[in-house]
């Protein structure tokens, strides 16, 4: 009930944001008021809506990869079979984040060439850490007494994970996902450096032709996406963990 209401509210907010992106004339007036008409401050090679959709799909697909790889990885290294790899995995994911995404982008270039594949790789590596490490924290913070009670009442390993550990780790996991996703939305602005699209296009083009209107347009749009993503995920965290 509460969840349904939160979902509807957030869907409406996202629709409103993309409606705002679609309103080319409004942006034009706004940017011209702020930056003057010369040079024309509104990016003209693609509409803001197209750019925003490209951007969110770059970040979204990379995030999907993070989820598919990161969550099972974190769960696995906390099980008895994966335990020996726990420290390896946590240092590797940490390493993924010490590499600046720009460096990963250019390192991926010779392998995958220009285009979105390199961007996905860079974003994936960069987004893995917050998700994996907070899932590890969440799973390891499950109360030892609750675990003991669960085992003593006859839960097997799988039941402990599904009925106890994952639900209790959920707040931490969701917080990690949120950090990852916001990070990816911000970092995806670098995608045009290797020939992919997104809201980075007006920013990078604006910087190279010294058109601050372009930069402002892209930067504001990225910021709005990141803010709303953060808000939505926070909202979901609250509604699906009513016991916390």
């Amino acid at each position, binding site marked *: 009930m509460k969840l349904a209401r939160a979902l509807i509210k957030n869907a409406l907010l996202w629709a409103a944001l993309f409606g705002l992106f679609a309103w080319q004339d409004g942006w034009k007036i706004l940017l011209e008021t702020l930056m003057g008409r010369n040079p024309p401050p509104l990016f003209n090679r693609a509409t803001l809506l197209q750019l925003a959709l490209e951007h969110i799909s770059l970040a979204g697909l990379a995030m999907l990869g993070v989820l598919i790889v990161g969550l099972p990885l974190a769960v696995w290294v906390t099980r008895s079979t994966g335990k020996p790899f726990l420290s390896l995995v946590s240092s590797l994911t940490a390493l993924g984040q010490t590499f600046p995404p720009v460096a990963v982008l250019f390192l991926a270039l010779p392998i995958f060439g220009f285009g979105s594949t390199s961007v996905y790789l860079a974003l994936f590596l960069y987004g893995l850490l917050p998700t994996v490490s907070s899932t590890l924290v969440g799973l390891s913070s499950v109360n030892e007494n609750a675990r003991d009670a*669960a085992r003593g*009442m006859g*839960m097997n390993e799988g039941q402990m994970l599904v009925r106890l550990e994952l639900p209790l780790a959920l707040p931490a996991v969701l917080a990690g996902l949120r950090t990852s996703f916001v990070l990816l939305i911000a970092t995806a602005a670098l995608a045009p450096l290797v020939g992919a699209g997104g809201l980075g296009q007006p920013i990078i083009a604006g910087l190279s032709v010294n058109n601050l209107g372009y930069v402002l347009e892209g930067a504001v749009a990225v910021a709005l996406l990141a803010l709303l993503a953060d808000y939505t995920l926070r909202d979901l965290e609250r509604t699906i963990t009513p016991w916390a």
Partner: protein
Amino acid sequence: MTAAIEFQGVEKRYGTTLALENITLEVPKGELVVLIGPSGCGKSTLLRLVNRMIEPSGGKLLVEGQNVLEADAVRLRRSIGYVIQSIGLFPHMTIFENVEVVPSLLNWDKLKKRSRAAELLNMVGLEPEKFGSRYPKQLSGGQQQRVGIARALAADPQILLMDEPFGAVDPITRERLQEEFLRIQREIQKTILFVTHDIDEAVKLADRICLMRDGKVEQYATPENLLAYPSSDFVRDFVGADRELKRLGRVSVASLMRPVAKVDIRFQTSETASVLGTLSARDALSRLLEAGGELLVLDAQGGIIGTISLNDLTVANMDYRQRKP
């Protein structure tokens, strides 16, 4: 005497240290046996052997005739109620869901689970309509402890393991919980293994007390016999210098008083103080020390059923001490 749990020369070794040494013990069906002793004596270890949370390194442990090492651990645990000190309620589940944990592991249908949970919550004194859909965090420590007991009883196990279940609540709540727990136990007659380090709790609840020290059984006896005939200086010290008082705590005034056949006019006109026959002899002693002389003993309706004096208590005590166990 049929034994629900039987330890036959059980040992538990951790590396080279011996945590439990040659434990032989029978827990009779339907009795409440308290394991007590100083910390590190092995009482919790002994308890956790029963549902195979820990496995014995030697000897044999039979639960309802079956060797635990031959039983399926998960199925065994589902058939034994388990209550631990810090309760271990699951914070993300409502009170109903917490009580229904074992029934859902056993795949009971929804209606049956819910009605059983409501029945048990009523039994432990929590209204299901009011508390059922709350989360553990919204309950007091004492209430959580009641839920812990209801949860352990959910699938109607014949054996209950309780590891300091009342350890984390304040003294007044603890006393109330103990009384209610005794009432429940009289009703359900489970075999209960109960760990505590509180001798008063042990004396109050136990049918038998198993006093342990350094992984060995020091004395296994009824509370009365443990208090009256401690088998060693260690037991004597452990039960405390007031052991005779503790023993009186388990006896009612009515069983020690001098009964009066018909009400003597002397008593009706006197201003002698009175006590209820159901009161413990220990509390009556305290009243005697306060009032001096003699007390009237009354039944629940206020009728006089006897008298008790300091001398009666002394005589009764001497009698008891002359009977060897």
